[in-house]
């Protein structure tokens, strides 16, 4: 049984604007965001004046303005009564839709526009070597010379120690991400061919235990994704609404070493640790809200910038037991051939990471409606999307469905 908020709202408009590295025209984040938003409004068949709520992900790195939400609002000439940027790192992307559901259910507004956007540029260097100033505590971590991979590697180190996961298990994820990416015309690694577990293990060490091919690639181009959300009574007036069956979110810290100063919280347990994340809470909330269980899910997308994160998320999303993610993937459960549909664009490792990964929700909606040409998953009626950011700091989970549960 779904709870009060389960299936209370739906996506009735969708827009995307995406560029590749080799495209002659380099669109800015603001151009991408404006175009995708306009597409979503057109797709929903509503007037811009009907947008009552406007939520954006965090300000794009490539287009710093004091209040980016206002900057984009100004381009669109809309006049919402609720508007804000949703932080929570990458979890804030699905967070825009979560706030959208709450806003339209308040009855004060009818339609929410939810957008993330980013474009690569000189300020977005390759992920593996980037200065971790934005991801590390400026006084207590940054002066020691961390990189983003080395901060995630603290969790990988503990995860492998506590649960016995091996480098081969981590590598298996990268292999399957790549297989999916080869089917996507925009994936960063679409022309790089298949890889093997040995390829991953033989790629150079970036920050132990993470090899180059264990790491995400920054998406080389630009992406914006936009959604129009409305409540159930209005959604029925639109063609093919995609129902938001349930959602959840949790944030536990900002800096990874300070996560070890958190204790006596339900999600973490009495003792500080690095291996329980807010994803478990977010998933539990989403399942309870929707009345669905992991076995009901047909297609799964995770926001996982390093291979081991996929294993942890498969566990916390309930697809296998805690600590058994490695065995789960080695048994073929996420295989491109014959496994569950998992990261069908190629994931952060092979599609590329950008704009807080909201394109994973677009992809899931495409799959649900049979529009994923070249990589269509048969009978994909219900999809789960995970968003995450910080060093495993913030997590969100959203379950979407073609049918509305009664």
């Amino acid at each position: 049984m779904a709870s009060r908020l389960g299936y209370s709202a739906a996506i009735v408009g969708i827009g995307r604007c995406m560029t590749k590295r080799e495209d002659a025209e380099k669109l800015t984040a603001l151009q991408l965001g404006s175009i995708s938003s306009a597409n979503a409004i057109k797709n929903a068949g509503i007037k811009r004046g009907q947008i009552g709520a406007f939520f954006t992900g965090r300000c794009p790195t490539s287009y710093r303005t004091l209040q980016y939400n206002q900057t984009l609002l100004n381009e669109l000439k809309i006049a919402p009564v609720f508007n804000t940027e949703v932080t929570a790192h990458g979890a804030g992307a699905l967070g825009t839709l979560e706030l959208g559901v709450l806003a339209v259910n308040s009855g004060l507004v009818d339609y929410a526009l939810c957008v993330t956007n980013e474009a690569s540029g000189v300020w977005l260097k390759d992920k593996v070597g980037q200065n971790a100033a934005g991801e590390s505590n400026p006084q207590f971590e940054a002066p020691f010379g961390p990189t983003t991979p080395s901060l995630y590697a603290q969790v990988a180190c503990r995860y492998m120690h506590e649960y016995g996961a091996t480098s081969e298990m981590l590598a298996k994820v990268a292999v399957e991400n790549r297989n999916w990416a080869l089917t996507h015309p925009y994936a960063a690694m679409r022309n790089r061919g298949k890889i093997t577990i040995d390829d991953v293990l033989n790629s150079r060490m970036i920050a132990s235990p993470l090899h180059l091919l264990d790491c995400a690639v920054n998406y080389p181009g630009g992406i914006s994704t936009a959604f129009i959300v409305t409540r159930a009574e209005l959604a029925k007036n639109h063609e093919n609404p995609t129902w938001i069956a349930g959602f959840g979110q949790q944030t536990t810290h900002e800096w990874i070493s300070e996560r070890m100063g958190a204790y006596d919280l339900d999600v973490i347990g009495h003792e500080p640790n690095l291996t329980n994340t807010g994803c478990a809470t977010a998933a539990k909330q989403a399942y309870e809200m929707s009345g669905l269980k992991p076995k009901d899910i047909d297609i799964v997308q995770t926001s996982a910038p390093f291979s081991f994160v996929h294993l942890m998320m498969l566990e916390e999303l309930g697809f296998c037991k805690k600590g058994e993610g490695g065995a789960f993937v080695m048994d073929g459960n996420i295989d491109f051939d014959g496994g569950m549909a998992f990261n069908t664009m190629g994931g952060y490792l092979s599609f590329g990471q950008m704009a807080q990964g909201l394109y994973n929700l677009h992809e899931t909606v495409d799959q649900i409606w049979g529009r994923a040409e070249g990589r269509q998953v048969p009978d994909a009626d219900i999809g789960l999307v995970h968003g995450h950011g910080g060093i495993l700091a913030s997590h969100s989970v959203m379950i979407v469905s073609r049918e509305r549960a009664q």
Partner: protein
Amino acid sequence: MSEPAIKLEDWAQGIPMRAGPVSLGLYQPSPETMEYWRGIDRRELMLRHCDHCNRFFHPKRIVCSDCGASDLTWKPASGTGKVYSFSEIHRAPSEAFAAGAPYINGIVRLTEGVHLFTRFIPDPGPVKIDAPARLDFRVLESKWMLPVFLVG
């Protein structure tokens, strides 16, 4: 032991934190952390302590997570602990840090129960989870005098 490349008086004046050409962040040592940096200047690792709960906290804490008290005191760490997690960094964030690569950053669990991010130096090593760690101070590639831990 060499002198710190950046003096406390400089920090107070707001010298940007940089490692070579790379800015390490926008924040400065600030009133809530100044005692920590003064401690490093005299080779002491200062922690926050709640005298009401008799509990140590990370030097950045402002209020006690247990009782909410805002009158946390400063106490020096004993300087012993264990490796909690670590990563050997081969691809450094900047040229300045690359000169020292590969190097090992990680989280140390202090005897006081506080966890801190730090540099682990094998002495004699190896660096592995639960290996004993002893406090020392070094000027790292960032030109900052920092609390590091010798492992083995």
